[in-house]
């Protein structure tokens, strides 16, 4: 009945703090759409303004990168696992924390609750 989307640690705060979410859909695009319609804040972290997946976010169906399948149109079926894998930089942790996610629009949305 469902496709499991695995949410990576940096994005869990935008997905009700869950590590995975069950969604419906016949393609990866539909599955992610179902996810972002439930968790609106996730959308701008996954997609750029032009509607394309951000270049530092990869999406896999099971263990295959959708860039080498049919991208958003890659079919998914019940029991498949969709993984969202963003780049993370950490290792030595010497850097000062950066500022918060910047607001993406003038309505003041996008205030995030990360530590500063």
């Amino acid at each position, binding site marked *: 009945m469902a496709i499991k989307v695995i949410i990576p640690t940096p994005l869990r705060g935008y997905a009700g703090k869950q590590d995975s979410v069950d969604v419906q859909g016949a393609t990866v695009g539909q599955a992610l759409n179902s996810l972002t319609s439930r968790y609106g804040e996730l959308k701008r972290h996954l997609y750029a303004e032009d509607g394309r997946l951000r270049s530092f976010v990869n999406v896999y169906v099971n*263990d295959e*990168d959708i860039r080498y399948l049919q991208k958003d149109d890659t079919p998914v079926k019940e029991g498949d696992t969709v993984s969202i894998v963003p780049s993370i930089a950490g290792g030595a942790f010497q850097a000062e924390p950066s500022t918060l996610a910047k607001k993406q629009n003038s309505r003041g949305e996008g205030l995030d609750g990360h*530590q500063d």
Partner: protein
Amino acid sequence: MATKTDFSAATGAARAAALSNEEVLRYSRHLIMPEVGMEGQLKLKRAKVLCIGTGGLGAPLGLYLAAAGVGRIGVVDFDAVDLTNLQRQILFSTEDVGRPKIEAAAERLRHLNPDIQIDRHETKLTSENALDLFRDYDIVVDGTDNFPTRYLVNDACILLGKPNVYGSIFRFEGQVSVFGYEGGPCYRCLYPEPPPPGLVPSCAEGGVLGVLPGIVGSLQAVEAIKLILGKGDSLAGRLLLFDALAMRFRELKLRRNPACPVCGDHPTIKELIDYAEFCGIRGEEAPAPQANVPEITPRELKSRLDRGDDLFILDVREPHEYQICNLGGYLLPLGDLPKRVSELDSSREIIAHCRSGKRSAEATEFLQKAGFRKVLNLKGGILAWSDEVDPSVPKY
């Protein structure tokens, strides 16, 4: 690129031709394994590995490579040991706080194994020095903490044809792979571009489980040693994901991107570039975007509180931070501010604060736009309060 690379063949220093009796004893648990044996141990002895960073990842990596008898280990770092490092950077002891990391690290590795050579590179890795630094080594291990250096390490490795053993961590989660090995994919094939600064929380924002870099750095050490021995299946072409909370390892397929600008069929990057610019970072620190919000210094706040002024202290940090220390303020996390703004009284003068002043600057700006006239941001946050007013408040 189809054959296994033999890292030991090119060097063959005379002193590495054989093991002393003491070395035979030291490495006996390697020597009695057919996968290593005398041949493998001599390969380790002749190998030259460069570790970028001596932090969370570099610590277990350096320790295991030194213990394994890797003959020459280069370490690159320019930082000093800090008390907050000791929660995970197991190369260092409490008495090392304040010392240059490179000095403490080299000393620790030398004590562990006096038979090997430790090269100290006390410098920041840059586009100017990376190629010269890498040239002397067989394998580069990336234990850095930021995107510009990761892309720099990747590109320099590809340009020189050196494998790059990659590891990265965030909170409870880690990634490991081997890039640029025998025609396999590189970091840019995985992620063509870094996130713009600030969109994804940086690691220092998110914290990290102290053991996590121990696991990921150890996995990097395993991969480096396997490359040296020429044994087993490397992680080239695979991305290993580790989730410590779920205690689950997963593996994803990585492909070389024929259009990759550095390792693709028609590369466009043929020399090192400006990686700060590539990652959208101008200057060392990104300037605070809310520099214009009205501020109050900790000392001013203290004297106004002492005077008995009616001030409403608004703490916009998270509840788990409030438990660490607080100024007795009203807790309303920044992320909840838009939906809970009605809890605040706009007729009172509000002093917003967080840990360092960044989140509260954003809160101050938000409240001003929402019509609050009397809002001030506590400059420097609780950290500055601790420095300038009340040292009994712990810093974190």
